[in-house]
Structures are given as structure tokens and as C-alpha cells.
């Protein structure tokens, strides 16, 4: 794999070295590195010829543009009202027990981060969660155990 610096250069060629390309560029970096490091944001700023503070300003505004180190798999559990009514807390507890991490933490080997998020748009099939881009709905503790064991065994 090439360095992040080369990767950013490729992205800037693909999307254009303009301010309006900032979101797609940041999204691709997060997709690859799972978060935006300070160095990556500085590099983007230099290539787009804008201040690094501007890049950080945009990045830190969006909850999916992580500016803190995250695991390879980001688990985002929906905490909006209907998912909450349908047992979100139990789902969180189950994940915490299995992965031995609390909300906001990343597992030691850097594989999983556990996060909460606002409405995922699956209110009729709650509780719901995302693992990276993948959606999981109508969760039960048992379903969670099955899903996570697949990830723990490392899929793909």
C-alpha cells in the first residue's frame, strides 16, 4: 500500500484540487485509514491550498469524519428514540461485554471501536446499528453475538 501522502495526492487528482472536493477526499481517507490523522489533514490542506484549521473545522463538524484514531470496524449503535424503546441499552451492554470496551473506546488490538449515533433511518426495525457501512437491524443479544463472532473471526 502506498503512503497516505501518495494516496492523498491521487485523491486530489481524481476529485480536483478545489475546496468543493474536500468532503469526498476526507471520506476516502477515513475509508482507508479509519480516521483522519493530524498529518493527513495537514497534507490535504497543503494540496488544496487552504489552512489546516479549515480542514480540521470541516472534519470535526461531521460525526463520520473521525479525527480520533478508530478501530478497523466502527460499530455505531443507533440511540434515537424508537431504537432506545426497543432495547438499545441491552444491545450496547452485550457488545461491551463481548468486546470488553465501553462506548467511545477502541479495542486493544485496534480492531473495533464502539460508538453511539443518531437516527440511522431504521426506526421500524430497531434496534439498529452500523458496522462501517453495513446495516444490522432488529438486533437481539443473540444476533449481536453471531454478527460479532463473524467479525472477530475476521471476515473477507
Amino acid at each position, binding site marked *: 500500500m502506498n503512503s497516505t501522502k501518495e494516496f492523498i495526492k491521487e485523491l486530489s487528482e481524481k476529485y480536483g484540487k478545489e475546496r468543493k472536493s474536500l*468532503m469526498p477526499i476526507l471520506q476516502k481517507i477515513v475509508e482507508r485509514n479509519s480516521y483522519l490523522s493530524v498529518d493527513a489533514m495537514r497534507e490535504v490542506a497543503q494540496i488544496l491550498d487552504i489552512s489546516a484549521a479549515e480542514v480540521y473545522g*470541516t472534519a470535526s*463538524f461531521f460525526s463520520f469524519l473521525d479525527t480520533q484514531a478508530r478501530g478497523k470496524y466502527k460499530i455505531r449503535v443507533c440511540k434515537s*428514540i424508537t431504537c432506545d424503546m426497543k432495547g438499545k441499552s441491552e444491545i450496547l451492554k452485550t457488545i461491551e461485554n463481548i468486546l470488553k470496551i465501553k462506548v467511545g473506546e477502541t479495542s486493544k488490538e485496534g480492531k473495533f471501536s464502539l460508538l453511539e449515533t*443518531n437516527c440511522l433511518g431504521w426506526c421500524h*426495525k430497531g434496534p439498529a446499528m452500523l458496522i462501517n457501512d453495513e446495516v444490522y437491524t432488529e438486533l437481539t443479544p443473540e444476533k449481536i453475538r453471531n454478527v460479532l463472532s463473524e467479525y472477530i473471526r475476521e471476515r473477507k
Partner: protein
Amino acid sequence: MNTNINKLEYIFSKDCDDNQVLAKALSFSNDEVIEELIKSGLRGRGGAGFPAGLKWKFTATQPGDEKYIICNADEGEPGTFKDREILTQVPKKVLNGMALCAYGTGIKKGYIYLRGEYKYLVSHLQKNIDEFHEEIKKYGIDFNIDIFLGSGAYVCGEETALIESMEGKRGEPRNKPPYPNTVGYLGKPTIVNNVETFASTMIVFRLGAENYKKLGTQDQHGSKLFSISGDSPKEGVHEIELGMSVEDFVREFGDGDTKAVQVGGVSGFCIPRKGFKNAIIGEGNPTGGSTMIFNSSRSMYNVLHNFLDFFAEESCGQCTPCRVGCQQLLKGIEAVKSGEKPKEYLDQLIKLSKTMQITSKCGLGQSVTNSFTSIVENFREEMIY
């Protein structure tokens, strides 16, 4: 059971050839397309409810060639998921609606702003867009659509915040005016319509404006998708003629023990049992179609706490009334609940929420009072004890 609910099936109907509807619409002149849409009375389906035809007209008449059409698929209002269903089941209806807009207004470039939470839909949508680009060639429409992905910010559903984020900036709403129809994406005239609005334009041309207008009430025409969730045995997306009362709604979709219905998402209103009879869904409350049902086992304090927590987190922080107001309302109800503040403090908080309505810059801060006041006033005891 007898209810006055008229269930319809236009948006998801599979027996209708959308390309035929588009071909029929294209037999109108550009101006006639817009006039027909104005005549239909179709209003935006995202929440604000602005007449769609007028939005098209105001943008079409702006000078210059560089203009944009944006389909707002940043569906973030809690309790709403109908746009995701539309994009999954009938994406061509949305794309054809955008093509119709392009034809009516002469705009050549379109975007679908898809929320990051729906990223899994990208490949499905892109495949449909590729096919669509081929199909519209034969109608001679010069129009091209790209997908732009959001990254998890509720406020970006607000059209100017959405545009800011597309320009690579923080998703902070702009001052209005100027509206996007004059100064939009990259400073150019821009039409931003919700997913369901574009799909609904195809229904207008399938039925004809006259017939479309006959559906619904005096104020709200046509049919509408409702996202129903919570304590209901029939959760999901349902298409219903506009104009039903909450009473009929509850009879049809409730579990027999409904205590309250939240109409219009967290930025909408909470209707308690005693108000079911006189409240009409979509009249005087947002038209996004989020309806969440709570039965008597639910604590309305917990519901309100969840809503305020949401607002405090999703407030963009740009203007003080909203940034500080959301936090103080949240702290305030916690303080009353714990006995740290007297129950009269709730009245102070209602005043604060009304101040936010007047002084906040965008719809987020302005609408916090809707759910806050309607829950606190109707379920006061639950806030205190």
C-alpha cells in the same frame, strides 16, 4: 374497524411505467411543466412544505446557465425512513422526477446528496443512474446526475447547510435570504427538493394536476408517505391520502393503548390522547411524514430527554440561542426531575424554548419548542415526578 384513512399506492406501484409518464410529461412545453406542477398544489415533502412548482419557477427565471438541481436524500429526522425506501424500491421515479425538473428549468447538472448512513445504497443507486443516463438520451435531455455523500450531520438536511457541506465547509446554515434559488451551490441558482418530492412530481403527471389536487385537503394536496414506528403492530412505510385525523391514524396504526403520537419527528409536535380528535396530520405540523407512536408504558420524560439530547448534539453551534438553548433545556429538565429546581422552572424553560424559536438562525433551533412545549404542557406530572 372503520377509519377514514384512504390508503393509496402510487409511489411504490410497480404496474406504472415511469418512462411512459416521463414521455407524457415531456409532451408539455418547459413552462407548461412548471405551470402544471404549480396547479397540482404539490408541496415539498421534506418538512418545510414549500410549493414545489414555485421553487422550480423561481430558479428557472434566474439569469445565467450554470444552475444546479439537488435531490436532498439527507433523511435524518428521527422516525423518518421513507426516502430510503423510495431510493431502494423505485429509484427511477426519483431520477425521472429530476429529469423532469431539468427539462422544465433547463438545468443540466444534478446531484443526489445521500446521507452517510445510507452509504450502502451507493452501488444500487449508481447502477440506476447509469441506466437512467442512457434512457434519457433518447428524450434528448442533456442532464447528468452525481451522488454526493454526507458524513453524519442532521443539520445538513437544511438546504443551505447541505450546500455548505457540498462546498467543503462546515454544514452551518446560511442567512436567508438570499435563498438557494438565487444563490445556491457555488453561488449559483439551485433547486433543492426532497426525494419524495421528486417522486411525487411523477405522480402529478401520471394523474394530471387536476386529479392530483383533488387528493388531500384544501391545504395539503396529494398522497404522502408516512414512516410509522414505535408502539405499533404496523410499523413501516405507508402511503396515505393527506388529511387524516390523528384519531383515525391511531385507530389504524396504534396498539390499542396509544398515549401520544409524535408527528413530524423530533422537530414536530407531540399530540396527547385528548388532542387526537382535532389534530390533522400535516396541517399545522411538519410534512416530513415521521410519526412515532408511544403507548402508556412509555415515560414521556425519557422521550423528551432523548429528543433534547439529540438537539444538543446536532445543533451546529453557530448561533447562541440554539447552541446554549438546547443544552440548557436538557440540563433544565434534569434539574426539575432531580428536585434541584422547583416545578415552576418548567415555565422558564418553555419561555426559553420560545425565545429560541424567535432568535435561532435556522429551522433546527426554531423548532425545538414544538416538541418541548407540547410534551411539557401535556405531560407535566411526568416531568416532575
